């Protein structure tokens, strides 16, 4: 009887539940999207060049004002996303936002409706808040990811429900088609989830087949405790664990290959600058000391190697933590593996990608020069682009491959256009460099004028650029008072030509990391604590 009942009970949940909540290439897992910090979502069920170019396709969908207390200029992180959760409250497409006041917001991004919110319990700050050391939660909510670079997968079946179902209708009299026929032979299930356990930290689960098993998000509270929570309702997956000392200025939290990593900067509190790791199995915390550049933390090669760029020499740092360098670090031991040292400081989180079978690393120096290195041979740079201007370089990059196979590196440049680029921008622009056949960085296109542009986001070959509107100063009150409004633009990935803009929809300025998106939508958070969603509208 039980066997029969078990079969019956499955009624009402379609066969396509196989498209469970495991990692989808449509999802934005962590700061700058992935472990390589590419700020790119390679496939999308809806967004592409033709869709965006058609007037009326890309729309303002919703906005939500979130209850959060800003710290200096920090307010909301860009959301990590989940295209499909088959949860206890229903099928959901979710966005996970961190608020600087130790607040977490999980939004049903189809409806622009709060799914759940939670304030993390954190010990009060002991140091006063400054622009350099604002305190509060300084890094985003993240989902566990892997360092391996997976092959792009089309939207829809296996990723979510943003596209129509794949039909399983067979020929008359031929019997039912099978899931394996629909999926093709390339389908492989994700790792099985681990059972929830209150006794202590466990290796981060990745979600299970058919939507079974635990699915977890992570947040790093202002007191340095890392929280693992069920993403369906925010309940603890395991008790909070000490990761960083209290008061750290942490960036780029990432849960990758079963470990947690973050970067600390500005010497806030008594916390040394560097790369930090937490082994969930042993609870061991390790540190690599150095002045790490950029806003998105560390980048990871497909073999798990950590890459950081450094700026100035860190006081008290060991000899193997050099300044003005690009450094490869072992992910388990946090020991330096390789170093490339330049004659100028770096300002950007590296971006890592594979090009013609080689793993490459790119980052930017303070004068705007991009350095391109072969991860397997970091003795010399493969290519260095001409300097643009001091202070013009961004804190992170974006990189993608277009439909023709050209590899692009995108820079959010501040100031007039440098030589080699043509256009009308006077205050800032997205500069696109491509890698030539002989492995050199070549100027490609420059976008329209942008005010203090954020790191661009690339979705399925469409470049989304943000004119942040920020009036940058060293005084948060002056910046808040004199900044304008953000405007979001969609650019043709091959030419940089503007194909869409958000117009006057956004009423505040934006700052921080790249806007995030995927599965037909884009999300931008602004200084006034509002999250905006743009994308493809479907009738509810």
């Amino acid at each position, binding site marked *: 009887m*039980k066997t029969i*009942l*078990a079969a*019956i*009970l*499955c*009624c*009402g*949940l*379609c066969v396509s*539940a196989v498209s*469970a*909540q495991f990692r989808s290439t449509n999802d934005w897992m962590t700061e700058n999207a992935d472990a390589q910090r590419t700020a790119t979502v390679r496939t999308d069920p809806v967004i592409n060049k033709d869709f965006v170019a058609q007037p009326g396709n890309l729309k303002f969908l919703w906005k939500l004002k979130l209850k959060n207390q800003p710290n200096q200029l920090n307010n909301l992180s860009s959301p990590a996303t989940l295209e499909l959760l*088959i*949860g*206890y*409250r*229903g*099928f959901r*497409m979710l966005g996970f936002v961190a608020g600087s006041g130790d607040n977490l917001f999980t939004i*049903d991004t*189809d*409806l622009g409706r709060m799914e759940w919110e939670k304030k993390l319990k954190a010990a009060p700050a002991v140091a006063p808040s400054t622009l350099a050391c604002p305190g509060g939660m300084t890094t985003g909510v993240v989902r566990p990811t892997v360092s391996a670079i997976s092959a792009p997968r089309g939207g829809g079946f296996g990723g979510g*429900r*943003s596209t*129509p*179902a794949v*039909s399983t*209708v067979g020929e008359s009299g031929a019997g039912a088609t099978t899931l394996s026929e629909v999926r093709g032979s390339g389908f492989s299930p994700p790792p099985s*989830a681990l*059972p*929830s356990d209150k006794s202590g930290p466990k290796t981060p689960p990745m*979600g*299970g087949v*058919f*939507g*079974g*098993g*635990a*699915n977890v998000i992570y947040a790093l509270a202002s007191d340095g405790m890392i929280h693992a929570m*069920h993403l*369906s*309702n925010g*309940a603890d*997956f395991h008790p909070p664990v000490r990761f960083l000392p209290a008061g750290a200025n942490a960036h780029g939290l990432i849960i990758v290959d079963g470990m947690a990593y973050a970067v600390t900067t500005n010497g806030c509190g008594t916390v040394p600058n560097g790369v930090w790791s937490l082994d969930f199995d042993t609870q061991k915390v390790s540190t690599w000391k150095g002045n790490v550049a950029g806003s998105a933390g560390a980048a990871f090669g497909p073999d798990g190697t950590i890459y950081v760029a450094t700026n100035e020499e860190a006081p008290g740092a060991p000899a193997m933590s050099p300044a003005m360098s690009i450094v490869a670090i072992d992910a388990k031991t946090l020991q330096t593996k390789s170093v490339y040292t330049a004659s100028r400081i770096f300002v950007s989180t590296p971006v890592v990608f594979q090009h013609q079978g080689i793993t490459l690393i790119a980052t930017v120096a303070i004068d705007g020069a991009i350095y391109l290195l072969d991860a397997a041979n970091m003795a010399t740079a493969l290519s260095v682009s001409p300097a643009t201007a001091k202070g013009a370089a961004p804190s992170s990059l974006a990189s993608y491959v277009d439909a023709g196979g050209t590899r692009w590196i995108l820079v959010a440049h501040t100031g007039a256009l440098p030589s080699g680029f043509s256009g009308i921008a006077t205050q800032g622009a997205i500069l696109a460099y491509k890698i030539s056949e002989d492995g050199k960085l070549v100027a490609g296109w420059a976008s329209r004028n942008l005010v203090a542009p954020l790191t661009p986001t690339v979705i399925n070959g469409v470049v989304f650029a943000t004119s942040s509107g920020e009036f940058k100063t060293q005084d948060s009150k002056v910046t808040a008072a004199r900044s304008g409004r953000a405007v979001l633009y969609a650019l043709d990935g091959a030419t940089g030509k503007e194909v869409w803009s958000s117009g006057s929809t956004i009423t505040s300025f934006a700052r921080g990391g790249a806007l995030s998106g995927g599965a037909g939508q884009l999300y931008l958070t602004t200084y006034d604590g509002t999250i905006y969603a743009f994308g493809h509208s*479907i*009738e*509810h």
Partner: protein
Amino acid sequence: MEPEHGVYGNGIIGVASDPVTKAAKLVDYYGPSNAAWLWKRDLDMQVSCAIFKYKGKELMVDAGKECVMYLMDTDSIGGDDHRTPLHRTPLYCNEEVNFASAGVWGSLATWEDARGTRWVLSPFWGPKHSKFVAPIENGVVKKGAVVAFKVTEKAGKPTLVPAWISRDMDRAEPPVIANGVVFAYGSGEDTDQAAYDIGLEYNSAEQRIKHSTRAVLYALDAQTGKELWNSGDAIASWNHWSGLSIANGRVYLSTFDGYQYCFGLTNSSSFSLGQTAATKGGK
């Protein structure tokens, strides 16, 4: 729902037997204009249609987990564009947009009273939608209820007008009408398919049997939805889509533990049902 590719999911199809080949042939279909949403949130159209005569027309009603009801003319169930029924009600439940434990499941019911009013009844699971209002409501609905609509002509077009909502029932199942009395029951089944911590691994017979409770049978005034009688704790177990039947003054209900319950009139001067038998089934 992609008719151009022969996909009719999240819709209703009409088929007829070919008089020559005897093969079933597609003759009509209806896909809600928000079928993509129904697919995305797994709000299946998984309810059996009910068909009735109304002022010389043959009309049909259907619903799904989304929790709206569609009124259709069987001559053309979706209109010229196959997307436009005669009438679509507002959402009456499933505000949470859940794929389990919410929405309409099973089938609908319809009857005509002595004054010629055509009624359509829908069971539903979960709370009533906060924006749905009926002229008569019989208490707060948290776990499920039966909602009644009257078929009413407006501007020459049949529509569905809310009439009443029943009392709360734990997973209301398809009702049955007899002589102006609506018999409905809450199955008591645990219909959840996922849990916050283990996701769809919850959806096992072991979990759901453990968390199911007991069925309760109700008799309702068909004009108002007012409760006339309930079976209290007479039924010891729950059931899973087993249905309800009525004949010769008796109401029958079977339960998961293998019993069949029979209720019947014990007092002809007032409405009172008594349990007449509970028979253990089996081989």
